[in-house]
């Protein structure tokens, strides 16, 4: 178990491509850190650099107080779980798990005991003599975990370990991974592109995009106060709704009509000239059927509901709003491309999560309310969250 520190780490490939730019991260002993981002964001490269499978171009990697930039993977004492599991097909499950110990020159009796303990923890005891080819996907995944666990390394590195499993198994394994990590208390660096895994597993989450860290924080922090448009759109499912808007005095004018800005928002956008364009961010759960709200402060609007999905506990209402004014954000378009969605066409497509008691019907207009105090306002040019400081104060 150990701390891991990354200091100004840069990865540049020989062809000049910059994969990771100036990454700073301090991982405390026993912490569970998630690296998350769309494909090509540099998260796997970062993991491989920590593992020692890729060279670090610039900067320092410190494990347990020692700079290990030039150390071979075997001298770093860290274990890795691969997306493809990378089990040795010619060895039995037991031999696979014992392989790191065998290489370390541990005697046979100790190997047997440690492998047995790990197998018990992972419910693999009856499979120890089988070959990986005869195992199911979930069992293979557990063998891969077992191989990492047996040697009690300083840290675990996991490269999308659950993405080859089917949806149900993935949820089961997610809790198991979490339980194992809590039991062993080993520092863990976990890479995923799935924001649900990031939100549920991590002590802290590192959101990356294009080789640059966007934000580091606890899942709640990322959810409640995203630093920019990218984090806001990436974290949360269904994702945050974005609307171009214009500041007019004390009011925000958007496709949802005119709304009075709450105090903290007004302070946050204070520096912005009247008439300048911003992007509004609203989470689906901050909409509600106006009839159920009472007189809580907020704004209402009427929209034609396209589709209603009832989840039992909630209702998802999808609708589009017309007559958008204000800024077009190049930043927003770029993020949409990153996410593989064509947001420009659905720029005013809104998802709202309403109470199960909401009376909305697809094809009929409904009057909805939204919570202006939960509103995020982003700079259309830079994508920065203008309400961040104010929002944080509000949360306290």
């Amino acid at each position, binding site marked *: 178990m150990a701390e891991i520190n990354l200091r100004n780490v840069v990865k540049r490939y020989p062809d000049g491509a910059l994969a990771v730019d100036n990454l700073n991260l301090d991982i405390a002993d026993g912490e569970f850190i998630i690296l998350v981002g769309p494909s090509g964001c540099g998260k796997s490269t970062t993991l491989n650099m920590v593992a020692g499978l890729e060279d670090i171009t610039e900067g320092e990697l410190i494990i347990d107080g020692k700079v290990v930039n030039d150390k071979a993977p075997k001298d770093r004492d860290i274990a*890795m779980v691969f997306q493809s599991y990378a089990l040795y*097909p010619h060895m039995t499950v037991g031999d696979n798990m014992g392989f790191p110990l065998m290489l370390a020159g541990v005697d046979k009796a100790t190997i047997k005991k440690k492998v047995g303990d790990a197998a018990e923890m992972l419910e693999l005891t009856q499979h120890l003599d089988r070959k990986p080819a005869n195992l199911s996907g979930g069992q293979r995944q557990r063998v891969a975990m077992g191989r990492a666990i047996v040697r009690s390394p300083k840290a675990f590195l996991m490269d999308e370990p659950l993405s080859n499993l089917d949806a149900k198994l993935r949820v089961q394994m997610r809790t198991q991974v979490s339980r194992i990590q809590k039991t062993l208390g080993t520092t863990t660096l976990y890479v995923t592109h799935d924001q649900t895994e990031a939100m549920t597993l991590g002590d802290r989450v590192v959101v990356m995009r294009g080789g640059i860290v966007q934000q580091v924080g606890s899942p709640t922090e990322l959810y409640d106060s995203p630093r920019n448009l990218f984090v806001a759109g990436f974290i949360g499912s269904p994702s945050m709704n974005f609307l171009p808007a214009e500041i007019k005095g004390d009011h925000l004018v958007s496709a949802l009509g005119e709304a009075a800005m709450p105090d903290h928002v007004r302070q946050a956008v204070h520096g912005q000239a009247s008439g300048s364009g911003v992007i509004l961010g609203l989470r689906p759960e901050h909409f509600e059927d106006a009839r159920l709200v009472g007189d809580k402060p907020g704004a209402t609007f009427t929209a034609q509901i396209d589709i209603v999905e009832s989840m039992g506990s909630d209702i998802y209402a999808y609708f589009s709003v017309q007559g958008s004014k204000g800024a077009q954000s190049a930043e927003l378009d770029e993020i949409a491309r990153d996410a593989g969605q064509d947001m420009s066409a659905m720029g005013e497509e809104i998802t709202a999560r309403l109470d199960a008691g909401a009376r909305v019907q697809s094809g009929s207009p409904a009057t909805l309310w939204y919570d202006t105090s939960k509103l995020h306002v982003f700079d259309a040019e830079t994508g920065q969250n203008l309400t961040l400081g104010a929002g944080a104060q509000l949360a306290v």
Partner: protein
Amino acid sequence: MSTAVETPRRKLAWSGANLIVLVYAFIPVLWIVSLSLKDTGTLNDGKFWPSSPTRDSYSQIFNNPDFLRALVNSIGICAIATVCALVFGTMAAYAIARLEFPGKRLIVGVSLLIAMFPQIALVTPLFKIETAIGIFDTWLGLIIPYITFALPLAIYTLSAFFREIPWELEKAAKMDGATPFQAFRRVITPLAMPGVFTTAILVFIACWNDFLFALSLTSTSRSRTVPAALSYFQGATTFEVPTGPIAAAAVVITVPIVIFVLFFQRRIVAGLTSGAVKG
């Protein structure tokens, strides 16, 4: 697909085709076995089966010290050449399949060039060189050219097998604390075993069947291999062709190849089934 339907008629057609191929392949083999069992009187009677089978030809060749010596030479030289070609070939093929290094294309090109080079053109220079450095008519004098010509074959076959092995296994071995050589020996090579055995068979047969070098780079029974030794067989008189003993010797030198192939074939099949890596 309609071909999946196994009608009796289709079955019959395939059996017929198989039979033709088998007959085509085995008639000469059976013919030589038959010849080796005939005695001198019935050798030219034109019958397929020997009318009075005899072991005379076999006892004759096994009492011939030159033949026994040639058999030992053949086995020794081919085994050593095969092992060396495999060891060097495995390492070279691994490097070519896995690593980027300057001159990689050159090595691949040169090895292809060697494979295509007409061996007859090299006989005279090799003879000159070997007499000059004193390895003419020695085991080493044959082993070196055999390795040279076996290596391109070994490198090509093996690098194809190495490319099939997922990169991640090697990364996993590294993370598990293996040195590059340990990863190569304990993870990569076991997985490439089917390829290694296939290559072993090909290389061994190529060496075993060589006649050109065996004939021109040896002068005595000290290092002459069986194919060359056969051509020096003598009959009872100068005018008699020793057909019976030659046939017997041909049968005898086929046996090790058959054993070799059967032994390694089992390993090839066993290796292929363990290939599954991920689901």
